[in-house]
C-alpha cells in the first residue's frame, strides 16, 4: 500500500516553492499571462457580428427601400457601393468586396449569397438579416407590434462577449499552465540530475506527487482569482454565485491537470516529449469543451469525448457560478468527474514515477 509521509511531502513542497520563488521570470509570467490574455480577449474578441460588408445588387432597385430597412434593422452590416457592371451579385463576393450579397429577380423573394469560407463570421449575421427581411415583408400585412417576438436574454442580457469568454478563460489559463508545469516537473529534474537524489531518499512517489504539486495548486487559485477580479473590474462581469466554491473547484481542476502532467513527465524521455504530450491533450480540450465552439453542435461521440475532459466541466461550473449564481451543490454535481479524473491521473503518476531510471 502506498502511504504518504507528511514530513517528506512537506519537505518536497517547501523545496518546490523555493525553486519557484527564485525563478522570478516564471513567477512574472504566471501572474502576467492570465491578465494579458483577459485584456486581449476581452477587448479584441467580439462574437456579435459587426461591420460585415454587404452588397445590394442593382437588380433590387425596385425593392430597395424594403431591403435597405432590413439591412439597417439587422445592425450587423456595412453597405458597400454597387455598380451596374457587377452581375450576378456573387461577383461582389468573389472580388472580395463583400461577404454577403443580395440579388433580386422579378416576382421572387430576394436571394442572399454569403462567403461561407469563414461561416462563424457570416452565418449569424445572415440569420439576423433573414429574420429582418421576413419582418419587412410581413410588415405590409401584420401590425408592427406582432412582427417582433420578445426574447428574454438571461444571464448575459447584453450578450457581452467578455462575460461569456472570461469564465472559460479562467479554465483555459489554469489548464495550460498546470499541464505544462506538471509535465516539466519530473523530466526537468531528471535532466538536471536532482531526481536521482530524490529517489535515493525515503520520499515515496505519493510524497513527491503531493509535495511537488501542492505549491502549483496555490498558483492556479491565484491565477483564477486574477482573471475573475480583472474581468469584474474591466468588464463589469458579475459574480452571482459563490466565488470561494469556484476557487475550490479551480484547485480540483488544477490538480487534475497537474497529476496528468506529472504522469506524462514520468513517462517522457525529454522536456520536448513532455510538452508535446501536454499539447496533445490541451488542444482537444479547448476545442471540445464548449469554450470556443457550441458544445451542443458537436456530434454525439465528440460530446462524449468532451464530457471526459475536465475543461468541459470547469467551463460549465465557472459560467454557472459567475453568471448564473451556482452554489456548492451545483458545482459539486458538475465537478465530480474532474475529481475522478484527478484521482485516476494521480494513480498513473504514482505508478510511472520510477519508470525512467535506467
Amino acid at each position, binding site marked *: 500500500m502506498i502511504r504518504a509521509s507528511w*514530513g517528506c511531502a512537506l519537505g518536497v513542497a517547501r523545496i518546490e516553492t523555493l*525553486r519557484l520563488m*527564485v525563478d522570478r521570470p516564471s513567477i512574472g509570467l504566471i501572474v502576467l499571462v492570465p491578465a494579458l490574455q483577459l485584456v486581449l480577449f476581452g477587448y479584441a474578441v467580439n462574437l456579435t457580428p459587426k461591420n460585415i460588408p454587404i452588397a445590394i445588387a442593382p437588380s433590387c432597385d425596385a425593392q430597395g427601400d424594403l431591403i435597405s430597412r432590413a439591412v439597417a434593422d439587422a445592425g450587423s452590416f456595412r453597405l458597400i457601393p454597387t455598380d451596374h457592371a457587377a452581375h450576378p451579385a456573387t461577383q461582389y463576393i468573389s472580388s472580395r468586396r463583400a461577404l454577403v450579397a443580395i440579388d433580386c429577380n422579378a416576382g421572387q423573394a430576394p436571394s442572399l449569397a454569403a462567403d461561407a469560407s469563414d461561416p462563424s463570421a457570416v452565418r449569424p449575421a445572415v440569420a439576423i438579416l433573414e429574420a429582418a427581411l421576413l419582418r419587412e415583408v410581413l410588415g405590409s400585412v401584420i401590425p408592427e407590434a406582432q412582427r417582433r417576438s420578445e426574447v428574454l436574454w438571461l444571464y448575459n442580457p447584453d450578450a457581452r462577449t467578455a462575460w461569456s469568454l472570461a469564465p472559460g478563460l479562467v479554465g483555459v489559463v489554469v489548464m495550460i499552465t498546470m499541464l505544462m508545469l506538471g509535465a516539466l516537473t519530473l523530466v526537468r529534474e531528471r535532466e538536471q540530475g536532482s*531526481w536521482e*537524489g530524490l529517489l535515493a531518499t525515503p520520499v515515496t512517489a505519493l510524497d513527491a506527487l503531493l509535495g511537488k504539486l501542492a505549491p502549483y495548486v496555490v498558483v492556479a487559485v491565484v491565477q483564477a482569482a486574477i482573471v475573475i477580479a480583472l474581468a469584474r473590474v474591466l468588464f463589469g462581469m458579475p459574480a452571482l454565485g459563490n466565488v470561494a466554491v469556484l476557487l475550490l473547484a479551480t484547485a480540483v481542476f488544477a490538480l487534475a491537470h497537474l497529476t496528468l502532467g506529472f504522469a506524462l513527465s514520468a513517462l517522457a524521455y525529454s522536456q520536448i516529449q513532455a510538452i508535446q504530450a501536454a499539447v496533445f491533450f490541451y488542444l482537444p480540450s479547448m476545442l471540445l469543451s464548449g469554450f470556443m465552439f457550441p458544445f451542443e453542435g458537436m456530434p454525439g461521440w465528440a460530446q462524449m469525448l468532451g464530457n471526459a475532459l475536465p475543461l468541459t466541466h470547469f467551463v460549465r461550473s465557472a459560467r454557472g457560478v459567475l453568471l448564473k449564481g451556482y452554489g456548492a451543490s451545483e458545482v459539486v454535481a458538475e465537478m465530480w468527474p474532474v475529481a475522478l479524473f484527478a484521482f485516476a491521473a494521480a494513480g498513473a503518476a504514482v505508478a510511472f514515477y520510477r519508470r525512467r*531510471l*535506467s
Partner: protein
Amino acid sequence: MFTPETARSVPEYAIAVRGLTKRFGRRLAIEDLTLSVKSGEICGLAGANGGGKSTSLRLLAGLIAPDHGEGLVLGCDLLRSARRVRHEVGYLAQRSTLYPTLSVQENLRFRAAVFGSRDPASAADRQIEAFGLAEFTAVSVARLSGGWCRQVELAATLIHRPRVLLLDEPTAGLDPAARQAIWRRLISLAAQGTAIVLSTHDFVEAQRCARILLLSEGRIRASGSPHEVAAQFDALALIVSGPDVLSLADRLQSRLVLAAHPMGNDIRLVVSADARGSVEALIVSQGCRSTATSLTLEDAALVVAHRAGALL
C-alpha cells in the same frame, strides 16, 4: 559462503546480497552480484564504463528493484523494505543531485527534512560547519566549483548519519587536492564503522579500497584485495626498453599483446602467460630488452576488457 541468512546473525555485515541481476529491456546491466561488506570496510566496484557499477549501487541503495536475487542492507530486505533501505543508507549519485538554483543551506536543509530530521535547519548548519562550507552557506550550488559541489553533495549524503555509504564515482573529475579531501573523510567514516561501497574507473584510486570487485559488461570478473585481483589473471607485464619501442608496441598490439602503453622512454606491455615466450623473442629480435613484472589492477582490467572484446 556468506549468505543473507547468515547476515541476520552476524550484525557486523552491513551489506549481504546474493545473485542480484538487473536487465533494462534486453540489455544486461548486472548479473549475479554477490557481495558482503562489513561495517568499517571500504569496498570498491572497479571497471570500465558500462560495466554495471552504477546499477549495482542503485540496487544496493534500493533505488531500483532487482529482477532476481536477494539481499539485506543493515538488516533490511532489499526487495520488501526498499524504502527502509533508502532511509538507512547514504547514496551519492554520479551526477550532482543538488538543486542548482538553491543555496547550499537550502539543499542541505531539504535533505535533512526528507530524512526525518526534527530540526532540519540545525542539521544543515552542523554539516556546513563540519565540511567547512560556512562561506558558501547562502551561495547557490550552481556557482560552486566542482570540488566544493562534491563536498556539498557528500555533506547532503551524510546528513542523516548513515551506517552504509554507497558512492558512485565520488571523486570523478576532481583535482588531487579535492580527491584527497574526500578520501580523508571516507577513511574517517570507515574508522568510525561506516561500511562504504564506491565505484570508480580510476584504478589508482581503486587500490585504496580494502576489497574490490572488478566488473565488466555486467559481470563480476574478479574479486578480492587489489593485489589478489591482479594475481587472478594468467598474464604478466613486460617493461620494454630499447630503440624505437613505440613502433614495436604498435606492431605487437593487435597480435600477441593484450595492452600496451608508454611509460616515459619505455613501454609497458600486458601479455598472456602463454604468449610470453613469443613476445620476448620478438622484443630481442628488434634489439630491445624486457623486464617481467606483476600485473597492476589497471593491467588486470585491461586483460578483462581485451578478453571481453572491448579492446581491439
